[in-house]
């Protein structure tokens, strides 16, 4: 089983790769659409500016990811990768997200510090394959300045300058705003759940 960690130049992917290695999963870091298309699972990581996702559009990676999702391949967006699964972000309005989840990502309001950095709690809502066995109120590690709205497919929220989506899930598509690879045993559990999903 191969997990493709999509490399589109948005930050450091070493720790995501390392996390899957630790779990004994076979993961590759790749920027080639052909390899993404062949993978049995796809991870879209990323930190930084939403404008970085333009690299997905121009490289053919967007089509490869969309194709994989359409075939039922489990796909996990992390941080910026999750925000890209929404329709858009006010950080770069000229770009389109995947629009699997409706709505626009927006910056935290001025009354709270941004980035939102540190360990914050999940409030679970509804059933979730990704969060199976993850207790309500678990702490996970966040670092981001923009956040996604709470939508119908939100399975966990977090509170910081208002509620936002911490985890979204629809069929074989999953998004997490926090960094599971940095979130201790809770994060490890979530990644194990993802590794255990079948096509």
């Amino acid at each position: 089983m191969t997990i493709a960690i999509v490399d589109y130049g948005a930050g450091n992917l070493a720790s995501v790769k390392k996390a899957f290695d630790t779990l004994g999963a076979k993961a590759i870091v790749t920027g080639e659409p052909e390899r993404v298309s062949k993978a049995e699972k796809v991870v879209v990581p990323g930190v930084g500016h939403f404008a970085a996702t333009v690299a997905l559009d121009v490289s053919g990676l967007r089509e490869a990811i969309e194709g994989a999702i359409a075939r039922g391949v489990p796909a996990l967006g992390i941080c910026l990768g999750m925000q890209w699964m929404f329709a858009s972000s006010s950080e770069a309005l000229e770009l389109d997200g995947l629009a699997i989840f409706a709505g626009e990502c927006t910056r935290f309001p001025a009354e709270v510090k941004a980035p939102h950095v540190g360990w914050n709690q999940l409030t679970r809502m509804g059933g979730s394959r990704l969060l199976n066995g993850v207790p309500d109120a678990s702490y996970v590690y966040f670092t981001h300045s923009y956040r996604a709205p709470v939508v119908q497919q939100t399975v966990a929220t977090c509170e910081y300058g208002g509620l936002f989506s911490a985890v979204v899930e629809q069929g074989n598509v999953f998004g997490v705003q926090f960094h599971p690879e940095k979130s201790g045993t809770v994060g490890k559990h979530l990644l194990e759940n993802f590794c255990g999903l079948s096509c």
Partner: protein
Amino acid sequence: MLTKRIIACLDVTGGRVVKGVQFLNLRDAGDPADLAEAHSAAGADEIVLLDISATAEERTTLLDTVRRTARRLFIPFTVGGGIRCLGDASAVFDAGADKVSVNSAALRDPNLISCIADRFGSQAVIVAIDAKRTSEQQYEAFAKGGRTPTGKDAQAWAKEAEQRGAGEILLTSMDRDGTRSGFDCEITRRIADSVRIPVIASGGAGSAAHFVEVFREGHADAALAASILHYGTTPMAELKQTLRSAGIPVRWPC
């Protein structure tokens, strides 16, 4: 609620931790990877590894140390000390660090901050400021491990670092460092209130009560400690329980 972070700091040189020989009764207490993992298991929210090597010979082992330590951690991991250029930062990220901490090199060339932030994101750049009180109202930023005055006002420098793309400020009070007499809440509050990015307080931790103070009065977002955690005088469990009893949100149990 967003919790206040407790960050364990390991000072390393030549691949060994220089402080912390009695921590958690570990036999090989001087190995950074062992210590980092032990801190993580005990409930530390993050690990900072500070390279205090004086010679190039000692420094060459750093990347190997970072690699070995990163492999054992599932929590955020920062590496600082001697990062002079984008290439140094890239090498440390490739070895598995999540953030780098820059200090002297950023004072010399402030453009380094945006240079790393543009490539790896602001969340990956911590600007460390060693501040020393020079008069009643004045705190100055010092370079080279506190040896060289820069003439820069610490608060102004923190604001400039923020504008240039720093994701966090690691503020060390040189007056309190190593004294165990408590954090300098005054400079911490001044800087924490004047920037819109998180501020990590450092220098002077001697008891759990000092952490309560720096969160309450110093408005710190996180606090860093070394010896108090290594020597087991205030175990992490006790520290976090004290904070929790004082009404400060912490990740506990974890």
